[in-house]
């Protein structure tokens, strides 16, 4: 039970040696590794956060670009529709003009044909009248015969 100074000094020396050895080969390296790992994890987390911010920024850029593309497409579409409407209006107007001209031409031709027909009928009437007059002159004319001649003339006109 009484203290033995030699033993005490031996134990002190043993303990101090252990402390020094463990300091060099355990505490400093292990705490260093722990710090290094902590820093690495922190840096990884920072990188992840930075990456997230970058992704958010890129996402915003893409959204903006998509919005621009949408706007451009809508604008192009509107322009195309307007152009189409314009072309359709022109085609319609041209068609209407053409149709009008065709109708005009048809009317003119009809007028011309009508005039021709009237002229032909007139000639025919003249010829028929002359022929009838020649018959009247050449034969004895009575009232009944005149009526019959006139009636034949009128039938001839109606047939013509």
């Amino acid at each position: 039970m009484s203290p033995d100074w030699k033993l005490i000094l031996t134990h002190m020396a043993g303990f101090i040696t252990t402390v020094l050895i463990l300091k060099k080969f355990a505490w400093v390296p292990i705490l260093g590794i722990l710090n290094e790992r902590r820093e690495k994890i922190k840096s990884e987390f920072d990188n992840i956060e930075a990456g997230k911010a970058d992704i958010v920024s890129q996402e915003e850029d893409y959204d903006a670009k998509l919005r621009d593309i949408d706007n451009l497409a809508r604008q192009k579409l509107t322009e195309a529709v307007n152009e189409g409407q314009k072309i359709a209006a022109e085609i319609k107007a041209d068609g209407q003009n053409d149709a009008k001209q065709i109708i005009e031409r048809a009317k003119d031709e009809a007028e011309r044909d009508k005039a021709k027909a009237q002229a032909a009928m007139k000639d025919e009437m003249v010829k028929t009248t002359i022929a009838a007059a020649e018959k009247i002159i050449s034969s004895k004319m009575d009232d009944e015969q005149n009526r019959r001649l006139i009636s034949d003339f009128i039938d001839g006109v109606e047939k013509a």
Partner: protein
Amino acid sequence: MIPYQFLNGLIIASSGAVEKTAEAAHGEGELQTHVPNLLTFVFGPEIAEHYAVTFFAFLIAAVMIVCSFVVYRRRDMIPGPLQNVVEMLFEALYDLVYSMLGKQADRYIPFLGTLFLYIWFMNLSGIVPFVHAPTSAINMTAALALTVFFYVQYIALTRLGFLKYMHHLAGEPNSAVTWALVVINFPLHVVGEFIKPASLAMRLFGNIMGEDTLIAVMISLGVVSLSFMHSPVGIPFQLPFVFLSLLLGTIQALVFTLLSTGYIMMVLPHDEH
């Protein structure tokens, strides 16, 4: 030699030792207060009595050093099982010391951490078969306490300087009244400085010696209780105390380390912690 006792392989003693213990109990009517250790069987009780503490203390230190070498050589950012355990212990101890010393923990953690691990392993070695707990000897605890004492004095003198340390020991007087009290304060603080290692040593020694004695007595009691039927195995009465020893061994190591940390903290310049 028949393999013998200690339930669940926690504490095993040789049949010879059990028989000796039982014979002693029968012949002298007393219970044994020491469990025989490895040196007792190899070199006999006299040698064991003189060298067991030193032998097992050095053995434990050697195991710690070997473990640190292994971890040092195989250290990696992705730790293996041993490095994992060591890192876990080191980080827990560092956090503990950091909570008291702040940034100064980096400087003192090798000493304080090793102190805790050394005492802890020595305390727990008492429940390992054939091993004697070195901290159940006053020489060992006194050596540790004196090391702490000298280390604290060294820190005080180097960090505070001689005059400031004397000022600190005088109770840091700053008025006429406190200067007048220096004649009382200074001797009290000086005596307090010497009492600190004494209290550290006696507390640890008393607790661990008490636990070891209790376990030895319970083992002896278990053997004696079945000696009438010449059983080679006794009743493991010591089992609850083994678990108690696990708990108290850890607590005592923690108390010794925390008090040492407190002593260091008290002599550091106040703005540094």
